[in-house]
């Protein structure tokens, strides 16, 4: 039990980078980017190929990050310059990446089980912890710079930031690229942790990322960027713990995880909208009563018999 929880926390830290990537597109840019399913594999594939060819594992992480950026760049260009709907740009890129990933890997599955990885060199907790802290610090710095503010405003009110001279095409491309860079890095780490890369390893990753973001924000809050990014990391860990616990339920199989994840995301998406609608309805009812109540009073006040 304890060991499976520890395993879940470790996996959570690895997937936290994926979740941070999804946070950038889904929350900051307000752009549901499906490239993730492809770019996660791109990252894992690049790392596995390089490591199995004897390259340094850290170098493979950097190249994987760059590969993710390239994938995001393509999606961003399709969406902004090609004026293709955001969802569709992501889907197109995801499909294209499937072939590209196979080209990179050369075969659908690469084992690196005995190789030296970034997680075997030093204590993996120190590696993961410091890596995440660095990423969090960099993100929090970046999103407070002039470019970072413009990028956030692009997702918040693009018309406004254009009227202040930011090229929102550029900010979107930067955001989607960075996001996929992080996703690919996460894929590279997962490949090293599990000892292999598989062409299907990215399937459903967008939903895993969304679940982490949504759980993190719901449980830990999101007052500002620093707060939100830390929440997302914690959300990724909580998600993995939920998964670990769910897998202990007898009648659930590992293969049921995708539907559980989807259900978590659906609940998290439906609940706030539904509760907002409920609140509005209540408010409208109250106000109507107040107003019509006031009207009938006025009517009495104007009664000429008085």
């Amino acid at each position, binding site marked *: 039990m304890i060991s499976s929880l520890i395993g879940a926390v470790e996996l959570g830290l690895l997937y936290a980078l994926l979740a941070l990537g999804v946070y950038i597109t889904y929350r900051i840019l307000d752009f549901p980017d499906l490239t993730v399913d492809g770019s996660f594999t791109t990252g894992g594939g690049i790392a596995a190929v390089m490591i199995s060819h004897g390259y340094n594992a850290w170098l493979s992480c950097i190249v994987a990050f760059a590969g993710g950026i390239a994938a995001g760049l393509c999606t961003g260009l399709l969406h902004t310059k090609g004026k293709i709907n955001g969802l569709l740009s992501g889907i197109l890129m995801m499909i294209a990446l499937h072939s590209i990933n196979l080209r990179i890997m050369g075969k659908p599955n690469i084992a690196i089980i005995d190789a030296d990885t970034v997680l075997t060199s030093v204590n993996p907790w120190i590696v993961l912890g410091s890596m995440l802290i660095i990423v969090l610090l960099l993100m929090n*710095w*970046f999103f*407070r*710079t*002039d*470019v*970072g*503010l*413009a990028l*956030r*405003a692009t997702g*918040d*009110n693009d*018309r*406004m*930031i*254009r*009227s*202040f*001279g*930011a*090229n*929102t095409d550029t900010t979107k491309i930067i955001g989607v690229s960075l996001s996929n860079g992080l996703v690919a890095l996460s894929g590279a780490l997962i490949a090293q942790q599990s000892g292999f890369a598989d062409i299907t390893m990215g399937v459903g990753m967008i939903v895993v990322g969304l679940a982490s973001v949504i759980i993190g924000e719901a449980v830990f809050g999101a007052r*500002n960027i620093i707060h939100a990014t830390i929440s997302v990391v914690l959300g990724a860990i909580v998600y993995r713990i939920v998964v670990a616990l769910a897998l202990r339920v007898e009648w659930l199989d590992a293969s049921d995880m995708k539907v559980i994840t989807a259900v978590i995301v659906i609940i998290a998406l439906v609940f706030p909208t539904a509760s907002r609608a409920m609140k509005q309805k209540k408010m409208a009812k109250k106000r109507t009563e107040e107003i019509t109540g006031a009207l009938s009073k006025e009517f009495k006040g104007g009664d000429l018999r008085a």
Partner: protein
Amino acid sequence: MISVLELSHVSKLFNPGTPDEKIALQHINLKLNPGDFVTIIGSNGAGKSTLMNIISGVMKPDAGAVRIDGQEISGLPEYRRSRWIGRVFQDPMAGTAPRMTIEENLAMAYRRGARRGLSVSINASRRSMFRESLERLGIGLENRLRAKVGLLSGGERQALSLLMATFTKPQILLLDEHTAALDPARAELITRLTDTIVREMQLTTLMVTHNMEQAIRLGNRLIMMDKGKIILDIDERTKKDLTIEKLLGEFERISGHKLSDDRVVLGG
């Protein structure tokens, strides 16, 4: 003298070649001198917003030229023109980023037209500058620098939008019914702020309004639009003796119909 803004023969057609074809602007000629504060009135669909959108680059004219300080800018996209043009929209939601803080919004406005790089936007000296500017609005926003803009009321947001639009002293300020969505008291506050800021900074301003009294009271020039044309351009001297009755009468005389504006307000 070179005009700050010059439109020559600007025309705009919507949905060309379809049954919905609509001439929004026809052969608009307009010259603004430095410091001109022009109010624009006109019936619904007269093309006032289209004119604003063409000046700011949101839309491209189908014919004609737009020049700022003598330089042709028709080819420039909106984000590249914004270094000269400040805008406040009718919708109080439109001019600010709701999920960002007041100081972050101001920091973005402060970088209007400048290249955005990787330096951190807000530091102590900027923050105190933002605070000072907010103080001048006189509505207490200076104490809420880190509040999310989404929490502000419509009037507060519009005041902030106005400050942001004028922060870096744009060559041209475009106001498109920026008080129309507010209740009368708030609208009056924003109108007063507008007048003060425009005068103090001597901004060349185009202000669309549906408030006749305001159109007469503010500015040094009044333009009347109807069916995509400028039908009347009243200079400062004539404007001094203008009344709402005279203005409406003049509109009817020239256009041949009554001024129809669903939001028209006669008095202040």
